[in-house]
């Protein structure tokens, strides 16, 4: 199993999200990348949340283009149309994380990325919550909705899919593996995120073996070396 982390990047600065409703500051992107490199992670997912009329989005992409990291990077946020793909040109990333387009009937964005960057370049991202009932978050509509609204054909075009537990986000434990049975999804290409750090550290089983774990920002909360996490596994 691979071990990675997530960085939430906005307006030139990294943040940490807790419970899908509170942001805390984290620090500069480059300092975070420098240290995550030292921790020898398998991957870093940089997420840039995008709002309507987000004037700073392009500026953040410019900043990201200058970022230096020897760890494989994935980038997600704002990739919703064919035009959006154009401005991703030159990003120092290996993979793209898609969320909104998983709800679209039109698969042209995914297919374009597929043909341009290869099959392994596409990672789906599904934030979910069990707070009321099982729901998934549609970032384009900025609301939770039924999981049936996800386009299964879109999911099939993803090399891997991140299942992000919004309820356990920012916590050390609490990832709800019940998500897998609630989504009709291939369980061989999953990445778990949100409330997983202590589970990994303690070597506990979630029931399903994912291909990778994203430990949010928790990697930076302690002096972890690769051995600290891998040693627990």
């Amino acid at each position, binding site marked *: 199993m691979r071990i990675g982390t997530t960085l939430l990047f906005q307006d030139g600065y990294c943040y940490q999200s807790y419970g899908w409703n509170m942001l805390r500051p984290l620090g500069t992107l480059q300092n975070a990348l420098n240290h995550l490199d*030292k921790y020898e992670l398998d991957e870093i997912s940089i997420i840039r949340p995008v709002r309507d009329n987000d004037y700073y989005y392009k500026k953040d992409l410019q900043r990201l283009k200058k970022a230096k990291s020897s760890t494989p990077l994935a980038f997600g946020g704002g990739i919703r149309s064919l035009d959006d793909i154009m401005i991703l040109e030159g990003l120092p990333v290996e993979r793209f994380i898609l969320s909104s387009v998983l709800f679209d009937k039109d698969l042209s964005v995914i297919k374009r990325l597929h043909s341009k960057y290869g099959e392994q370049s596409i990672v789906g991202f599904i934030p979910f919550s069990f707070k009321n009932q099982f729901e998934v978050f549609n970032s384009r509509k900025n609301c939770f909705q039924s999981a049936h609204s996800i386009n299964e054909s879109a999911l099939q075009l993803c090399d891997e899919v991140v299942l992000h537990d919004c309820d356990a986000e920012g916590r050390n434990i609490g990832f709800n593996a019940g998500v897998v049975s609630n989504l009709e999804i291939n369980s061989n290409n999953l990445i778990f995120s949100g409330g997983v750090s202590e589970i990994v550290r303690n070597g506990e089983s979630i029931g399903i073996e994912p291909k990778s774990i994203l430990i949010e920002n928790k990697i930076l909360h302690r002096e972890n070396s690769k051995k600290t996490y891998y040693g627990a596994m």
Partner: protein
Amino acid sequence: MAQCKACLYTTDHPFGLTLTDGLCSGCITHREKYSINWDNKYQELESIANWAKGRSKSYDCIVPVIGDAEDYYVVSKVLELDLNPLIVSVNSYFLNDIGWANLQNLITYFDLDSWIHNPEIYTYKELIKTSLRKYNHMYLPWLQLHTSFPVHVAKEKKIPLIVWGANQAVEQVGKFSHHDKAEMSSWSRVEHDLFGNDIEALMGNGAQVNERKINYYRYPSITNLGKNIRGIYLSNYMHWDPIKQNHSTLAFGFIPESNRYTFDPYERAGSSVYYGVHDLLKYERLGYKKIKDHITRDLRHGRIQFAESEHLLRLYMAQKTSLFQFKAFFDWLQVSDSGFEWYLGHKILRSKELLAPECSERILISELPSGLQELVSPGQEPSELYLKFYKGIHI
């Protein structure tokens, strides 16, 4: 830039700050203190202490100190946990007689072994000069040492635990929840203690120093540190209330220092430069001084009302530093008079109005909000500044 509706901090805080419904991440995190079961947290702390005990043949833990009131409090708590600590301090060469007396009394009162590292002075001064020129920051080289030397000692002597007091990034801006139990890390050191400027930033075209003499300015390799050495902050495990805690250390013989730039006579008492020079440069760089941190801290603890806070801030922000006091630091640094004039002309811009021929008078304790008065001591006046070393005890 936006201000929190409950404190004085704004979103341009150097640690970063977020607002949720107008309330800042620092205030939200502070409010956790009233819902946390601190007995449970203390049990977690005891578990860590038990993990550390006996892992080393020498000491159970290191407590990095500067001789501050907080150090007295931390040491007292470490001893309550039945740990056998080694006191480690890096000489800044900035202590006055009060600072040295406090440091030596800490060691003798609690009867502990200590290791005081005296950095090679030529290199140290060169690095300070470069830090001033590049970043208008006089403390960077010392902070680099203070945050890395204890880790070197821990690694060399195989001591498993380093115990720090407050995690300022949590206490000030709520960068993490108390429940995260964020620990010492190389990332946090660069991000919070060094503001992104590790020793490499002072090398190259900066200081003319020998690479071989800066080993302790560099953080050790992080390989295995996470498993074998942990650095924890007590503020994650206790209801942290600095001024109340610091006041309690008077019982251990801690000497507070009279201060005209803040009402807090405990934090950084005994420094020849912290408030008169460093704090002025902080205002130059960031637009605010330490007093804002102190007011916000005690505003959150309910000792200052929001309506009083702005007035108190204005009162202290207007306090003048004497040009003589400011120049004394540059004399210590062996900067020529023309070099000092250049610095004043090029690096001191917005704080120029805060430099005057004479220091301002002290603000009386009776002028402070009533909630603070009982915890503020008058403090003593130093008699000697910039002492390289001083036993500070009279036999």
